């Protein structure tokens, strides 16, 4: 059946992401409303958050319907709507995993800056980022990381006069 493939391919994130946003919108709206001293403090936030929750609920329900088993879906066939949804089908999992690893690398890079400086952390980040993307020659990666980090840090420090924290340069 043509449905099976697409159902297997739908990642749970399609439901989780809007649900997390719903929780954030509700918590934020409630927090503002309880702390507000007068109407102007919540006038924009609360109604806007409420509209957002409705829109997100609609999105989450749409994704949930897509995940229902085929038999149930057939019985609800008449209620389904076309979502024109460009959300992922799950086929791009390796690429998504690579992107996630890259995000982790960027996070480590940013949080390491206060400890090892912009110069060293940038060099390490560039080398590892190339390795992560499949560039296997360490020599090439080190040459690229070394030259690029020196040029970029020098531009910011000497040309733009930004006081970047550096360890070596």
């Amino acid at each position, binding site marked *: 059946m043509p449905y099976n493939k697409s159902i297997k391919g739908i990642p749970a994130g399609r439901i989780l992401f809007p649900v997390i946003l719903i929780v954030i919108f509700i918590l934020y709206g409630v927090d503002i409303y309880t702390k*507000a001293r007068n109407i102007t*403090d919540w006038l924009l936030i609360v109604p806007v958050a409420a509209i957002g929750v409705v829109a997100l609920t609609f*999105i989450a329900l749409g994704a949930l319907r897509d995940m229902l088993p085929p038999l149930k879906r057939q019985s609800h066939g008449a209620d389904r709507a076309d979502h024109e949804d460009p959300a992922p089908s799950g086929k791009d999992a390796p690429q998504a995993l690579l*992107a996630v690893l890259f995000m982790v690398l*960027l996070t480590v890079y940013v949080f390491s800056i206060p400890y090892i400086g912009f110069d060293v952390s940038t060099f390490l980040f560039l080398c590892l980022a190339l390795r992560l993307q499949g560039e296997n020659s360490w020599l090439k990666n080190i040459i690229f990381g070394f030259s*690029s980090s020196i040029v970029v840090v020098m531009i910011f420090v000497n040309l733009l*006069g930004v006081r970047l924290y550096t360890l070596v340069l």
Partner: protein
Amino acid sequence: MISIEALQSAVAMLTGNPVAWLVVPPGLIIGLFFGAIPGLSISIAMAVFLPITLYMDFLPAILFLTAIFTGGGFGGAIPAILLNIPGTSSSVATAFDGYPMARQGRHGEALGIGLVSSVLGTLIGYMLLLLSVQTVAHWVLKLGPTEMLVVAIWGIMLIAILNDSTISKGIAAGIFGILISTIGYSDAGLMRGTFGSMYLLDGIPVIPALIGFFAASELFNLVGKQYIVEDRELRVVKFRNIVDGMRQALSKPLELARGSVMGTVIGAIPGVGASIANLAAYAVAKQRSDNPEQFGKGARSGLLAAESANSSSEGGSMITLLALGLPGGAGTAVLLGAFAMHNVTGGPRFIAENTGLVYALILGNMAQALLMLVVGCGFIFLAGYIVKLSLKHMIPLVLVLSVMGAYTITGNMVGPITIVVTGIIGWLMRRYGFPVAATVVGMLVGGIAEGELVRSLQLSGGNIIGFVADRPITLVLLALMLLSILPRLFSYLRKRRQARTKRFNSTQELP
């Protein structure tokens, strides 16, 4: 129509400020470079280089960023013509006829047509802006708080609704941006959404967030992707062919003017922008052509219309930005970020109080377009090599520039951390089909919307509905807002109904 006094002051500003001219060629080259590399976009370039403008005065800063904008407009056409890969989303229709021309060995001619169309499109777009800006400013000054509130909501709604995603996702993304904009101390002194962190007292830093949403999230998306191309012959470009292409473009002034005017008008509508202008102008050119069957097979008119329209849309989007303070898309959102960085607020009063500066911006951009003719011509010779630059190397390098740029803006680690957080959120949004541009515009316009809403409430004495009913301009704007939104809403509902019927019929046929 044009204030001569302000025009003289604009010329004095431009001639007396050499820095304003020094930054333009690098801006054009950056734009051409980023536009020419498939995957990287104009908004990434503008967002990444935005922090550098912190060290410039307002006029050079905006000219630098608009130079990137202008350069990127033509830069995107280069891989579209040479490789059939639109360098940016606004060059999709450029590939329809540009690539067939390249396949026929006419790539030099196609690039020449593209360059002249882009230059003239930009010129015409800014010329129309110059002619209309005073009139627009005159009308916009009549807008009070309720009208500005409607305009702000309208802007966000259009961007939320007119995108490739579903309407509900567009609205949710826009609202997410509005809520982000309210974090930190409010105008009334209430601390909101700071999680007790002193770093968030001033709210989420807008520029790093903008870099994260536009640049970092898109770069995460590109990790692991490569554009494989085999076309050694395309590296050979003859100057004679480029000039020949330019001459052919100039021989069709009416078609150039039609594409450019269409691009300007479409560009002025928030949420529509260069991508739609590019496609719409191509469609109209095909419809009006005596030889529509030639379109898609290397028709010069198709390339000319597509390129002139996407370039002129820049001028159109500047009308909305300058007059209303509303960004129409990613590029103008970055420009609005630059306005904020220099403590300049676009909107009704801006044009009236700074007419000279606005004219200087327009004239500077017109001169910039002419300069692009020279810079772009030189760039074409390197284009065959630049389009093949490795994304593997560009992605981490651009991210490093973004992180350092964000540090430059905030002076502490809040900027880089904001890039990481908004980059990850932006990636998730793109992955699950939420339009990131709507969030950024919501973030930029949210503050204005809240201010105008509170002012409207205070002026109305609590009876906001009665107050709005007494303001005819607000009612007209509300009606226009509904009129502009309803067609898309109806088309969406119609598609849903059709899909439902189709699915119902297919389930009936199942055993």
